[in-house]
């Protein structure tokens, strides 16, 4: 059986179920207690699990990320919230140098089973420091498992897996999706990390997209006279190139669209993986589409210009034929 819930309700359920299941799971971050998180993601948890396991922190992401690292090494499973993914940069050393590298440099003896929860993405007019999609920053630092959520189903299943995984996982919901509805099973479930999913089968072209771009790609595909195979990577690092390659072997065409900046971005990495290893599967050069190489402006007109829209995705798909 399934029911319709919102994306953010799915997130809240995931945290709740994992806290219920495992006493070692704790939650901390700014305004996670009675305020319930900026988007309602932690609503009700403080009441249910109390001060020990749900903790408001002072305003300092270095503390949030660094403490999560220590607590995880010490045997706890922290879910640590950054209010906006952009703020990862304010804990730069913790997030880029410490968390992803300590397990490796310890020769595998330190385990860091933490989850950073960090809403990302544009579309709410929040400007240059509150609108970025940062999975390309994180994907560039080996050691992080980088996960994005596209539907309520993904949001719940992937977050539960992120919490259970023994690696540091950076989990990125998208701000503009929090109110979207979708089917979620009544029964408990998890979704595998490190695996992409073919969301819609097609014969003519493979389109890889996640989060808001996934929904726009779906709209674009519906408007076009071609049969699109739509792949949601779910995990960006490590990336499941196999599922994408298999698809391209079938379709001979690839379009990658993502809400990260184009320059040195996820799109070109994904395309390169397939081109380099499966060059002879291609009937046409691949196409990559991403955020234009500028900081995200606040004016809705300018924001719309730089974030890939359905029209740009449509044109991108058409360009490979």
């Amino acid at each position, binding site marked *: 059986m399934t029911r319709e819930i919102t994306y953010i309700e799915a997130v809240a359920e995931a945290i709740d179920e994992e806290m219920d299941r495992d006493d070692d799971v704790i939650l901390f971050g700014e305004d996670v207690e009675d305020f319930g998180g900026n988007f309602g993601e932690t609503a009700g948890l403080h009441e249910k699990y109390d001060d020990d396991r749900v903790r408001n922190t002072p305003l300092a992401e270095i503390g949030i990320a660094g403490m999560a690292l220590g607590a995880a090494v010490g045997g706890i499973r922290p879910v640590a919230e950054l209010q906006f993914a952009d703020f990862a940069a304010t804990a730069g050393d913790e997030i880029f140098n410490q968390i992803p590298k300590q397990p490796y440099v310890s020769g595998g003896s330190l385990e860091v089973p933490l989850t950073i929860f960090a809403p990302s993405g544009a579309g709410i007019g929040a400007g240059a420091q509150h609108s970025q999609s940062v999975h390309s920053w994180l994907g560039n630092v080996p050691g992080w498992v980088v996960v994005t959520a596209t539907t309520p189903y993904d949001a719940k299943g992937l977050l539960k897996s992120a919490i259970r995984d023994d690696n540091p996982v950076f989990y990125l919901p998208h701000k503009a999706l929090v109110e979207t509805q979708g089917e979620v099973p009544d029964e408990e479930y998890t979704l595998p990390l490190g695996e992409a999913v073919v969301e819609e089968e097609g014969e003519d072209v493979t389109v890889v997209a996640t989060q808001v771009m996934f929904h726009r790609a779906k709209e674009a595909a519906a408007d076009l006279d071609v049969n699109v195979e739509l792949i949601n990577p779910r995990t960006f690092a490590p990336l499941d190139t196999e599922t994408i390659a298999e698809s391209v072997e079938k379709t001979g065409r690839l379009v990658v669209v993502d809400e990260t900046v184009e320059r040195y971005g996820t799109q070109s990495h994904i395309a390169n993986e397939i081109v380099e290893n499966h060059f002879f599967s291609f009937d046409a050069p691949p196409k990559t589409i991403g955020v234009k190489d500028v900081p995200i*402006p606040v004016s809705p007109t300018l924001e719309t210009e730089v974030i890939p829209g359905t029209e740009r995705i449509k044109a991108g798909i058409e360009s490979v034929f």
Partner: protein
Amino acid sequence: MTHDVSVDDEMAKHLLQEMLRIKIFEEETKARYEEGEIPGFVHLDRGHEGSHAGMAAAMRDDDWLAVGGARLVGQYIVKGVPLGEIMAELYGRTGGSNKGHGGQMHVSKVDRKLYGHAATIGSGQNPAVGLALAEEMKGTDNVAVTTIGDGGTSRGSFHTALIFAAYWDLPVVFIIENNGWAISTPSESLPPDRLSDYGDPVNIPTESIDGSDVETVYHTVSEAIDRARDGGGPTVIESRVARLNPHFEGDKETYRDEEELERALEEKDPVKNYRERVLEAGVVSESEIEDIIDTIEREVQEAVEYARESPDPEPEAAYEHVYKTPLYGQGEQE
């Protein structure tokens, strides 16, 4: 409780006028936001008007302001950014101070020595120290003032800025606007008794004042600025105010005690209190205040008209200002 007016009549009128300007501008902003004319977030300043006005009155035009905390627009106003340019920036229009690239959280205006704001709370203080360094290197006696909220003082970047300013005795005035809350986190739960105590371990002089009293702010900041200008180095001031509105428009403030808020509205409204005080002292009359309000309301309406009529940027404008071109060596420099 009555207080005498401790500044001359002209300054008293100026302070009242600046506070009213913030209040009236923001009432209009709230209305425009609710009508869907303003995109993004809106954070309002109710309760901070005295702190903003007193601070700015203590500054010279050539002193820098690096804005912090989340009570921003009042600070842009008192630093002299034209109201139309602020409103147009809130609308994301070409006539805005930042041509629609920045929005409410990033208004900046170099010719007013307004550095702007780091929307990552607490990232504006080290730049303020750098601004002070630049002034010193250029041989001016200009200072840098920087504000931060109670919440932002937990960031390491804030403490680093104190250390750097103290290390070189730079002319910086750090003003912590402690309004009791960082969204839902009470500042009472932070360790120090007074947030200005954070200056103690680095031997910076500190003050903790009632920031809802505009004259107290004016006098305290003036003293700190004078010291900085004379080579006496940085000061940390805690300006205690009340947050008389939600964190952002839309925040239901379920975490807040209603009685406490009622009391704050009654006792800590800087505009209402100062208005009564100058009236009682006979500095201005009721009708003069009404005239001031009329004038400001007109200015604010003009600002809204200006914003509404200001064109949306052309989409191509998104690509401007990423770099200054040509890069060195690529062609004629400007």
